[in-house]
């Protein structure tokens, strides 16, 4: 039962990073890709209807950790305190920026929110990537499952590199998404950016995958998930260069999913590794709720989650059309 909920949480984090991944990329790139105000609005309207629903994956992932593994939630959230303050600031600014940017017809107002949106969209995949990497890599955790380090202990070199890997992939993912969803100027610029970021991303993903295997995983050979991630990222680069955007999007989505899943599969059954003593590791067993809680939540999950997936996919279907500048011109 605990293993089942570990998988559920891994899937929720994966869903969040894949879906919100392109929102981050779009947010970070909307200034360059959009260029002028009309272009920027065109770019933001590609994620406008769906970004908020994507963020709920994060809320649900955190709440599921709280309910299913209170010990994990407690140690992680109190240990990563200052990093989470930064994450929250960025999440707050980003959400408000997307919603408020067009609400006033003033160049200064819009420039201000654009800056906030770009900064927060760059910061979030980096910080969340670092946090996920920390879980597997290890943090100073004592025998009472309490974090005993400082802010700088949250930033081992491995985690920072992993964070940068997630950032690069979010940018690529976003650029590919925009290549599908926009036209004319923004589409050209997004495609150019995708081709620029792709080679950097592929190198970073290789480093991250191999390092994750070495630092967190076990065995000499890479796991199937790790291999799949490498294949996916190579495919992504190739498809980006070939300009096959639909397939490229699928490949970048699989790459990001693989990067998250690698961390979870490699650290299982640990949920947070202690760098002080392996005996202090948080595992699914010593942090989980009793089986009755897990059973209740499993019932709720099995009944409701499929419905959520259906209406969220339907929302994507409703807004599947390319967002074009021409429609803006014809509107009053």
């Amino acid at each position, binding site marked *: 039962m605990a293993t089942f909920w570990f998988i559920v949480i891994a899937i929720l984090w994966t869903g969040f990073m894949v879906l919100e991944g392109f929102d981050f990329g779009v947010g970070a790139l909307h200034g360059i890709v959009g260029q002028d105000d009309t272009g920027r609005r065109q770019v933001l309207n590609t994620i406008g209807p769906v970004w908020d629903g994507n963020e709920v994956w994060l809320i649900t992932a955190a709440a599921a950790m709280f309910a299913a593994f209170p010990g994990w939630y407690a140690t992680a959230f109190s240990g990563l305190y200052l990093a989470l*303050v930064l994450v929250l600031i960025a999440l707050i600014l980003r959400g408000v920026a997307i919603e408020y940017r067009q609400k006033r017809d003033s160049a200064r107002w819009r420039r201000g929110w654009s800056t906030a949106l770009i900064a927060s969209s760059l910061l979030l995949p980096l910080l969340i990537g670092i946090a996920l990497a920390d879980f597997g890599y290890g943090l100073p955790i004592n025998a009472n499952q309490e974090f005993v380090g400082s802010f700088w202990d949250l930033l081992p070199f491995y985690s920072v590199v992993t964070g940068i890997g997630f950032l690069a992939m979010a940018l690529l993912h976003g650029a590919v998404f925009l290549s599908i969803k926009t036209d004319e100027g923004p589409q050209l610029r997004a495609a150019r950016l995708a081709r620029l970021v792709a080679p950097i991303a592929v190198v970073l993903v290789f480093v991250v995958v191999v390092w994750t295997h070495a630092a967190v995983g076990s065995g000499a050979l890479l796991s199937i998930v790790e291999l799949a991630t490498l294949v996916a990222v190579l495919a992504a680069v190739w498809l980006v260069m070939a300009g096959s955007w639909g397939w490229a999007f699928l490949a970048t989505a699989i790459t990001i999913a693989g990067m998250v899943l690698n961390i979870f599969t490699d650290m299982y059954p640990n949920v947070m590794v202690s760098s002080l003593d392996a005996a202090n590791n948080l595992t699914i067993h010593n942090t989980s709720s009793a089986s009755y809680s897990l059973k209740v939540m499993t019932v709720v999950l099995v009944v409701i989650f499929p419905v959520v997936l259906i209406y969220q996919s339907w929302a994507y279907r409703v807004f599947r059309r390319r967002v074009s500048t021409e429609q803006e011109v014809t509107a009053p």
Partner: protein
Amino acid sequence: MSNVDLARIQFAMTSIYHFLFVPLTIGLSFLTALLQTSWHRKGRPEDLRLTKFFGTLLVINIAVGVVTGLVQEFQFGMNWSAYSRFVGAVFGAPLAMEGLAAFFLESVFLGLWIFGWNRLSKRVHLATIWAVAVGGALSAAFIMAANSWMQRPVGYKINPTTGRAQLTDIWAVLTNTVFVWAYIHVLLASVVTACTVMLGVSAWHLRRRNSPEVFGRSARLALIILIPATLFSLMIGSHLGVIETRYQPVKISAAEANWNTCGPCSFSLFQIGGGNNDQTPTKIIQIPHLLSLLSTDSWNGTVQGLNQLQAQYEQQYGPGNYVPNVFIQYWSMRVMAYGGALVFLFSLIGGLLLWRGRLGHTRWFLRLAVWIAPLPFLINIAGWMLTENGRQPWIVQGLQLTKEGVSPSVGTATIVTSIIVFFLLYGILAIVCTVLMTHYARKQLAPEPEPGAEPAAEPEFIY
């Protein structure tokens, strides 16, 4: 100041701030859905214009509500990790259900509603705003179930080996009497909040004769709902007091600064002085029997005194101070109750004017309606102060003390940093949101389309 005090300040600050946006979101999504339903059924263009007008205010408000809600979810683990460890198995379950069952619904369908005006059929588009309203109300249900468990823990046992709370009966958690009544109270308070805002905004325009035939409709709708919602909210709140007296007698005795057991007990309208160090404040205008009636539902009911309760708790839980801040209790109760009564009186006057057909022309009432709009927000905050402060020194009534719930690994400097950061950020957001809200609330309605002309297409770019 200890870490516990700082963590409490942070929680109070972020929760109060978050709850400025929540009730308006819940209430206004419901009212907007009603307006759109009316448009859908009767086809009057005024209703469509009102739907879009108040829908815009809803969207501006929801943006801040959603992002500050993230802070709420994270800070249990950040500042209250010992609490989270202790109760996660029980308290976390409703939060996880909230994410799955309510937040997805609210967020996905809000996106569909904002962007779906000319992508979805009218009927489906109408359904999306109802989904948003239902999602908001559902999320309140789960969070109130979790909160009510802290007020009156049920459906759990303490695991003897881990010493932590363990869920044994989810049904008991979801049918907790405190939860049922508190939830209805919160929903009604949300509707009251949204109605006063809608009425205030409409009144502002009516005084200036901006599209009076349109804003007259929204004023009427708000008023018709406001009267019963306020009445029921007062009645349910009063009944909630009786229930809380049963499970948290200290909370109610502190709200009356009732130090010694009495029966029948009188209720004081005001007092001078009073507090934890002053047991004999000067009580002004005492209404005999009212406290007995309010807290026990009987004319001569006995209400326990704080001194007696303190002695009883010391025996039960060991030495310690079990009396919350009496000053806060006494006055938050009165701000809530008097404010509620004032809103009810105001709504009755409005109802009378509406009945006589004078609502749109009574200028002093229209001016008053603008000024009364912020009052429910104050009442809501007072209500939460009463509830949460009244539970102190417990974080979970009878199970865990607040000081035992705080994160042991988080230092003072860290908490202070985050308090300052959130204070500044929330301050800026408050200004920005208020500026936008007033800007859009004062905006003229979009001109009515020419009769017979095709309705103007929605702009493709919403953002």
